């Protein structure tokens, strides 16, 4: 996808947008892929994000921030072109603890887009193969530009 100039331009623009989000900067989010209602965002392990000091496992709350951002990015990148989106509902299932000192990568996809709501599914993985660390289902509000509603 790096070779597709249109995708590359979208990625660059989306990265610029992500860089404007203070929480994304604080958690060092990196946008890896975006387009067609699908987004991949990753986050490095950081000792400030530890939720369980006995094990060094990252707090679920850091993963929810990553999942929420990734779902929002996927919704906004949908081909139908929503211009605004906000989280209505986000459910996260924590399948297993994330390995300490490993990058966590979230992938979110629009499962269904309606005129006012986007339904999304997302997974988060660490660097180990196999089972994801967490999965999410979400509903986001979407607003389309006025002229598209004719």
């Amino acid at each position, binding site marked *: 996808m790096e070779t597709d100039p249109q995708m590359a331009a979208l990625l660059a623009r989306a990265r610029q947008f992500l860089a404007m989000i203070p929480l994304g900067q604080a958690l060092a989010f990196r946008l890896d892929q975006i387009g067609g209602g699908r987004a991949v965002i990753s986050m490095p392990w950081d000792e400030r994000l530890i*939720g369980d000091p*006995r094990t060094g496992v990252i707090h679920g709350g850091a993963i929810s*921030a*990553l*999942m929420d951002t990734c779902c929002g990015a996927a919704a906004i990148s949908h081909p139908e072109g929503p211009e605004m989106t906000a989280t209505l509902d*986000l459910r996260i299932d924590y399948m297993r603890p994330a390995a300490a000192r490993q990058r966590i990568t979230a992938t979110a996809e629009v499962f269904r887009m309606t005129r006012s709501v986007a339904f999304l599914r997302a997974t988060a993985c660490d660097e180990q193969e196999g089972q994801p660390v967490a999965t999410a289902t979400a509903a986001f509000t979407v607003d389309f530009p006025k002229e598209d509603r004719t």
Partner: protein
Amino acid sequence: MTRPPEPVQVVKQRRDAALRALVSGVPYIGFLGVRFERLGDELTAVLPFQDKLIGNPLLPALHGGATSAFLEVTAIVELAWATLWADLEAGRIDPDIAETMLPRLPKTIDFTVDFLRTGLPRDAYARARVNRSGRRYASVQVEGWQDNRARPFIQATGHFLMPDA
């Protein structure tokens, strides 16, 4: 023949120290800047506003990820606190040891967040209610508000795996 009641400062000091130990043991609570206020055994979590919690710089609004993390932290601390409180009051743990001991924390199984309103760029508060706490599983409900207690801006419910006793 009953023992005279403990001086109030001694009781408060013991409870506050245990709560401090629990909260300061979790780096992510410090990262978000969350603190807990205690009235008896009731906890209120406070998320003081910081620029880094912003998710939409144009509105500006708090990031949904930050506010949902705030509720998850509140739920976990409430659950751990309920156990800690019972042990502390029954004299099952030494308060001096409690301060240096790493807390045994419940693990989140699932957490569902309902974003009711936009989080405004100011302080937020939250309280959790443990609806069921069994030997292995617990179910907790959390509500967050800002200016008006009667107008929550976020609510959540979650299930947790309790640490081995």
